[in-house]
Structure formats: C-alpha cells, structure tokens
C-alpha cells in the first residue's frame, strides 16, 4: 500500500528512535561523555604513553674523537631526537648525570672507534634511563635506527671490508621492558565499553526512574522494540566513536592500520553487541541512574581497564586474575584490535578470539533479554 507523504504513518519504532536521539542531542552531559571523553582519553593516554620524543637530553663519552665517532654523534644530534646535554670526560660521571635526571640516554664510544670499526670490532654502548621504561625503549629504538643508518652510510662509501658496529644496549633500573603500542586499542576497548554499556544502562535506568518506562510498556511497543529503540542510537554513536579513536590513533600518533578496515569494523560491532547487552543487563538490575552508573563503572570499567591487559600486562598477573581476565570481553577485543592494526592479521589468525566474542554476545544478549522480560514492572 502506498501512502502519500502527508498521510503516511510514521513507524512506531522510528518515532521512538527519533525521541532517543533528541534525548542524547539535548543533554550536554551525555554529549560530552559521548564525544569529549573519547578524544580527551585518546589524547591523554597518547601523550602520557607517547612514542615520539623530541630533543631528549643525552650524554656522550667519546675518548676517540675521530671521524667515525664525531660523525655518528653529529648524526644523532641532527636527527632532532637528541640534544647533547653533557660531554663526559670519564665514565664515572655517568651515574651522577643519570641521577640528576638531566639526561635520558648516554652513548659510550670506545677509544679508537674508527680503527676498531675497520677491524670489525666497533663496539658501542647505549645506556637508557628506564625509570621511565617507555621513554627509554623509544629512545633506544631511535638511537639503534640512527646507528644502523649510519652503518649503511659507511657501507655505501666503501668497497671491500664491511665495517661492523655491534650495539650493546642496557636498561637501567628496570631491565625487563614491556611494549608501548598499547593505548589506541586499549582506549578503544574502554571507550566502546563506556559508551555502549554505561550509557545504555543509564538511559534505560532513567526511564525506569522517571516512570516513563511504565508508559512505554503499556503502549503497543513490544519490549524488544523498546530495547532496540533505546540501544540503536548508541550503536550508531559508538561506531562513530570507534572511527574517531582509530582516526586519532592513525593521524596524531602514527598508529599503523595494516589489516582490513572491514574486519576491524565487524569486530567493533561485535564488541558493541557484547557491551550493549551488558548495559541492558545492568539496567534490569538497577532501580535508578546512580546505581546503573556505579554498577557499570565498578563491574565493567575497572576490569576492562585493569584486567584486559590494556594497562598491566596479563602475563605478569597472578593465575586467578588471568583467569578472570579471560571472562572479560575487552581482553579478546584488545588482542583482535592489536592483531588487525599492528600485525595486519586476518580472521585466519583471529578466528578463536572472534568466536569467543560471538559466544559472549549471544550469551549476554540472551540473559539480558530474559531479565528484561522477567523484570517488567
């Protein structure tokens, strides 16, 4: 049947979703949480765990002062990453320099560097201040890259013997280092959980608190329509959020995206389903907005942040916490996002994680739907 435009029936569901969008767009607090928070969090985590450091102060101990050592020192400083703070006259000055916090890295040349280079014994020591492990790793990686580059340069200018520089790196204060490219996937797990679960649980709890839920339940809308109508806008907004976080990661922090965008989108939607059904579940258990907020903060945000491997590596957790971690959707999503973005792997590698998330989505959706029906007031 065709209705003319003015005589058409707006769909019940559409009318309901329109209202939900109005609630969101009219509430400045909600908007701030929705769009301000992800940006703020990515930037904050990004700059706190930053992977790009410019003009780091270094100390150089160079007893050779020959062409090779001076050339390398110049290359280090001209890279823009390093600035020579001190030229040490003995290795004894090393400790005080690190202790004072003035330098982040020290480069120790042997004597007769050029000569040793010719004989293939060009040993060089780089010492990092690992009281700030992330910075130290980053700086050492930079220095390594520059030195390798310099070696290539020497190679190109010479035929015959290959000069070899062997680099020995050592970490101070914290010899066991962990990776750093964690925060974009981590913030994604956090933001999507926050927006999907917390916001939906609050918005449903709000209708209960205000009494409008009763009115909706008495109306011809079916419970499933009410749930979908309440969550659909958040699904859309969360997807926008995910894109925003990825985009910030790519542009501001130079995060790679080596895998398929399509797969990443699919996995995000899957994770959102898990989060949304958790949100619905929480809303059925809480009488008001405060309770919903408290339950999602404590029950979802904390484990997501602490146990999923986002901030603390799971390998170093006690067995029991690792076990709890496997029950957290973020743990699997984190691995998936890292796999797709950094390693560029596909479903052939990530099928297990994806399957676990599908299972979680179905499980939580089923129990939250059952709960919603049982708890109709």
């Amino acid at each position, binding site marked *: 049947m065709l209705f003319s435009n003015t005589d058409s029936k707006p769909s019940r569901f559409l009318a309901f979703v329109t*209202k939900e969008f*109005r609630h969101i767009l009219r509430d400045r607090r909600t908007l701030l949480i929705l769009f301000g928070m992800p940006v703020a969090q990515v930037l904050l985590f990004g700059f706190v765990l930053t992977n790009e450091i410019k003009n780091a102060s270094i100390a150089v101990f160079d007893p050779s002062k020959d062409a090779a050592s001076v050339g390398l020192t110049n290359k280090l400083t001209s890279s823009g990453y390093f600035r020579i703070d001190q030229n040490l006259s003995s290795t004894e000055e090393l400790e005080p320099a690190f202790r004072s916090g003035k330098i982040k890295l020290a480069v120790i040349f042997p004597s007769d560097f050029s000569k040793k280079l010719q004989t293939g014994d060009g040993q060089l020591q780089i010492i990092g201040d690992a009281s700030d492990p992330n910075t130290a790793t980053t700086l050492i990686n930079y220095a390594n890259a520059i030195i390798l580059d310099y070696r290539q340069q020497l190679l190109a200018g010479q035929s015959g013997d290959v000069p070899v520089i062997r680099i020995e790196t050592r970490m101070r204060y914290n010899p066991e280092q962990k990776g750093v490219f964690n925060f974009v996937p981590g913030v994604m797990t956090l933001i999507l959980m926050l927006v999907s679960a917390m916001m939906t649980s609050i918005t449903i709890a709000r209708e209960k608190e205000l*009494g409008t839920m009763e009115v909706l339940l008495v*109306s011809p809308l079916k419970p499933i329509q009410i749930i979908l109508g309440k969550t659909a806008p958040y699904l859309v907004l969360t997807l926008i959020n995910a894109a925003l976080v990825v985009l910030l990661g790519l542009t501001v922090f130079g995060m790679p995206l080596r895998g398929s965008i399509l797969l990443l989108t699919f996995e995000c939607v899957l994770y959102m389903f898990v989060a949304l059904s958790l949100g619905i579940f929480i809303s059925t258990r809480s009488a008001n907005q405060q309770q919903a907020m408290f339950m999602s903060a404590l029950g979802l945000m904390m484990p997501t942040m602490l146990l999923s491997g986002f901030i603390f590596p799971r390998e170093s957790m006690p067995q029991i916490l690792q076990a709890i971690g496997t029950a957290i959707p973020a743990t699997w999503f984190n691995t998936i996002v890292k796999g797709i973005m950094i390693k560029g792997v596909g479903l052939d590698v990530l099928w297990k994680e994806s399957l676990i998330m599908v299972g979680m989505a179905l499980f939580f959706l089923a129990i939250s739907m059952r709960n919603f029906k049982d708890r109709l007031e």
Partner: protein
Amino acid sequence: MTNVKNTITMNNNIISTDHLTKIFGKFTAVNAISFEVRKGEIFGFLGANGAGKTTALKMLTGLLMPTSGVATVAGYDVRKNPDQVKRRIGYMSQKFSLYEDLTVRENIRLFGGIYGLKMTEIRSKTTDLLQKLQLEPEADKLVGSLPLGWKQKLAFSVALLHDPQIVFLDEPTSGVDPITRRQFWELIYEAAAEGVTLMVTTHYMDEAEYCDRVSIMVDGKIEALDTPRAMKAGFQATDMDEVFRKLARGE
C-alpha cells in the same frame, strides 16, 4: 433505564474479571477478584497501599500476567491478546508520564507515533489539543519548563490521543494542588461525557465521591463495590473517608 438482561449488560461491560489472581511466591497480591466496569463510567479503584490495586491495574493493562483467572478488557482477553488490549487503552502513571526534555509538540508526536496514528491525524490532533489546553504559546517549549498542573493536564490529553476506549489513571492527582485537582477532574468528566471509560486509583477520599462507582480493595480482595451514595448508606457513613476507615481498618 429498564432492567435489561445479562446478555446486553455483558456487552456494556468494557472490563470484566473473573477470579483474577496474582501470586508472588507465597504472597497473594490479588485474590480472585471478580468485577465489571461499564462503558463510559468513571470507576474509582480504592485501597490502602499494598492492598493490591496496583497489581490488579498492571494485570488489566497487560504489564503483568495473571497467575489464574480471566480478565477481559475492551473485548480482549489480557492473557491471550495483550497487544490488542494495549492498542485500546490509555495509561497515565503516578509518576509523570511525559518526557521533560522534549517539547510539548514533540511529546504529542512521539506518543502519536508509538500508537500508530497517521501524520495528518497527529497534526490535526496536536492543533486541537493545544487549543483545548490553551497551550499554543508553549507548543515548542520543553515540557519540563511547564508548571505541574499543566503537565498533568497535558499528560492526560496525550493518554487520550489515540482515542482509547479506557484510560487507566494511577493516582493522577498525587502531589497536585487542590485547584489543579478540580480542573483535572473536569477533564476526566469531559472525557467520560465523550464515552471514554476511566478507571482511577486514588487515595484522596473526596475524589472517590466524584466517581460513578467505587470499589475498595482490602488485602487483595474487593470488599465493597457500589456507587458512593449507596456505599455511604450501607455503612451509615457521612463521607467516603468514613466508609474507607470502617472497611479497611475495621473501625
């Protein structure tokens, strides 16, 4: 009004229940109540807190499944056809039932949409409703900015938007000042005059006097059901408050 036989009065009943019961665990909230509400009547549904009137109301509006017994509302069994029942009833809750962060017009549109009205209907009804309530200047203001009395009147009019046969009002006047309460009752009378049946729960006993017939629930059972006048005569009471006290508290 002559004595017509049962078959015809049956058709005149818009709500009828037969041993309607709701049990929560070991607690019997509603205990086999049987009563009829006639078309176009204002039916007062009274009882102390916890007497079971809210539970009964929830069963009649399709929010709760009865444990046993039968209830027919607007011609449909609430157990078998809750969807058909829901289309034909309106509901106004004790808490405010509109959205405060939407404008007057948006609220009307939302509920029109939810009840499946056509766009043209929604438009013409919006105009009529705003005119009737003299809310035209406020049409695009947020409902939250209106005084409580106006909100209640608006909520009632919105509950009537889809021309329901029955409107359930769950303590609609709690927390409203006496003047607004009077005005609100005028709206109820107006709706009744147009043939709408109204089932009202209230704990203001003076309001019970405004009803055509009143039932009083005590401990899950309907202990009395009659016109206010007959009830007062039967209990030799001067007002409904006295009737209620004699019944509910056994004074």
